[in-house]
């Protein structure tokens, strides 16, 4: 409980400090993206790392939240707060509906069903031009903060990130969290001890997709134009890579992975086209050197330090 709040406070503090350290629009933008992908990676990992559901369509729920919120504000003139909520609820409900048939299948079948649904949604978003304007995408989405620069966005996304992490760490430490650990350990055994495995997976997925929807809504009202490409596998793969790279099945690993991979991608920008090749090579090198992900390195380093200071 205390630890969760501490993590939340540290994140908040970071968000408060960053704008005073730099006023470069570019760095603030990077921070916003890192925090955003951080939330997504952390909640994708809730599915893969804790519930054993490999979700390959995760970005589609991010996109669904973005589209929902953009549509209700531009078409129906909803205010932002209910629009964000709508984004989250729609993503949660559809995310839950889609996972229901998957609960009877193996984890790889889940991977592909979710991928397929994401593709269907992308195609729908592309072809239902009356609603979505198709490939052209939606624009003219109202911004959250009118003409105020990036700083307030930094504060807002940091608050969302801190809340998301605190909530997840509370869940993981609660009774439900115990059930997660049991499911992760041995699903059949968990089921035989009376843990409602399916219900827990369903609610977990709804939470995870709902969070993606809210972040998507934030994104829509931050970037202000969205296209069906958001539904695509490319974004999901990015989120997956961040999560696995940072450390599967840990709370902070994916967050770390998101920050490092995003900053690394930008840091290599001077290499121009070679940037992403470098990025791929670093992932491979990390996998070979630190199979448990980045968080494993940090933990090992921490143990080393404490051992040294202890002696």
């Amino acid at each position, binding site marked *: 409980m205390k630890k969760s709040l501490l993590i939340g406070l540290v994140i908040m503090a970071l968000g408060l400090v960053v704008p005073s350290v730099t006023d470069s629009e570019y760095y603030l933008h990077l921070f916003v993206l890192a925090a955003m992908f951080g939330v997504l990676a952390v909640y994708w990992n809730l599915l893969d790392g804790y519930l054993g559901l490999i979700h390959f369509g995760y970005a589609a729920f991010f996109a669904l939240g973005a589209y929902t919120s953009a549509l209700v504000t531009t078409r129906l003139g909803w205010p932002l707060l209910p629009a964000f909520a709508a984004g989250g609820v729609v993503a949660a409900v559809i995310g839950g509906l889609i996972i229901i*048939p998957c609960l*009877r*299948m*193996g984890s*790889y*079948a889940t*991977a*592909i*069903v979710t*991928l*397929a*649904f994401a*593709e*269907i949604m992308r*195609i*729908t978003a*592309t*072809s239902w031009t009356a609603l979505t304007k198709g490939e052209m995408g939606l624009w003219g989405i109202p911004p959250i903060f009118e003409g105020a620069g990036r700083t307030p966005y930094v504060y807002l996304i940091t608050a969302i990130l801190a809340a998301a992490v605190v909530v997840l760490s509370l869940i993981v430490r609660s009774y439900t969290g115990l059930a997660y650990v049991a499911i992760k350990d041995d699903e059949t055994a968990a089921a035989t001890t009376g843990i409602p495995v399916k219900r827990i997976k369903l609610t977990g997925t709804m939470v995870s997709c709902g969070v993606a929807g809210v972040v998507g809504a934030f994104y829509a009202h931050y970037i202000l134009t969205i296209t069906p490409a958001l539904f695509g*596998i490319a974004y999901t*793969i990015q989120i*997956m*890579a961040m999560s*696995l*790279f940072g450390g*599967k099945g840990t709370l902070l690993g994916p967050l770390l992975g998101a920050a490092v991979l995003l900053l690394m991608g930008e840091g290599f920008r001077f290499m121009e*086209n*070679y*940037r*992403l*090749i470098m*990025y*791929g*090579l670093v*992932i*491979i090198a990390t*996998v*070979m050197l630190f*199979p448990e992900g980045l968080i494993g390195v940090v933990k090992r380093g921490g143990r080393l330090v404490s051992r040294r200071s202890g002696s």
Partner: protein
Amino acid sequence: MQYLVNGLIIGAVYAVIGVGFTLIFGIMQILNFAYGELFMIAAYLAYFGVTVFMLPLWLILILAMAVMFLIGFGIEKAVILPVRMKIPDWVVPVILVTLALQIILQNLALILEGGNFLGIPAYIMGSLRVGNFSVSYERLLMFGICVATLAGIWLLLRKTKLGLALQAVSQNRDAAILSGINTNTVYALCFGLSGLLISIPGVLMMPHLYAYPTVGQVPIMKAFAVTLFGGMGNVAGAIIGGFILGVAETLAAGYISALVKDGVAFAVMILILVFYPAGVGTLLTRRKLG
């Protein structure tokens, strides 16, 4: 009728794509995300074979198969083997490595060839007309080669010692080692074989597509769909799944609209999955490989 014929032809191609993908899953339990990029390399090979070296199709095909076999084999030996040796629980790390490979190969292509869409004319002109429907010779040839490839892989799995080894490793890895099978060789051969298989559609589809860095996204989606449909790692299922996907797509495109083509195919797959989660392959055969 015309749609059905076209569907079966494209279905044979999808079947080959699916088999190459499902083979790796069946034997190693991993999803190879760089699979589409192998298709992309084959497409570039075909492009340069035609435009720069002006080789005949049969030679391009054979060269591409050989090169792609070596590339697949090499990828396993160079990047996957070290990960497997280092990490006992290697499935997730290896998947992450294939994701990284996808990024690397796409950007390598971008650097070397730029983001241009490179196309080639049809390999063969003319078409066969019977009554009021027609099939181009090129498509007929494509169909023939793909069916022959499927027959070849079937024979390989069922009738050769290598096939026996592949099946053994896929069903019980420890028991395969205890029987004297070198699993490292089997894994590398399996990647090589997968590369060889994807090179065939990569070359043959070139006149209908373009070569560009992210062209691999198209076949990998098909590979996913077909593989899931047939049951993960189930070769016979992937073959059936390929044909059904081909026909479903063509019918959807023909009777509804080209835009919904991909969506309808996926919708059909999902419906079937809900009823046969293990994949239709299990209805046909309990054995996975061949």
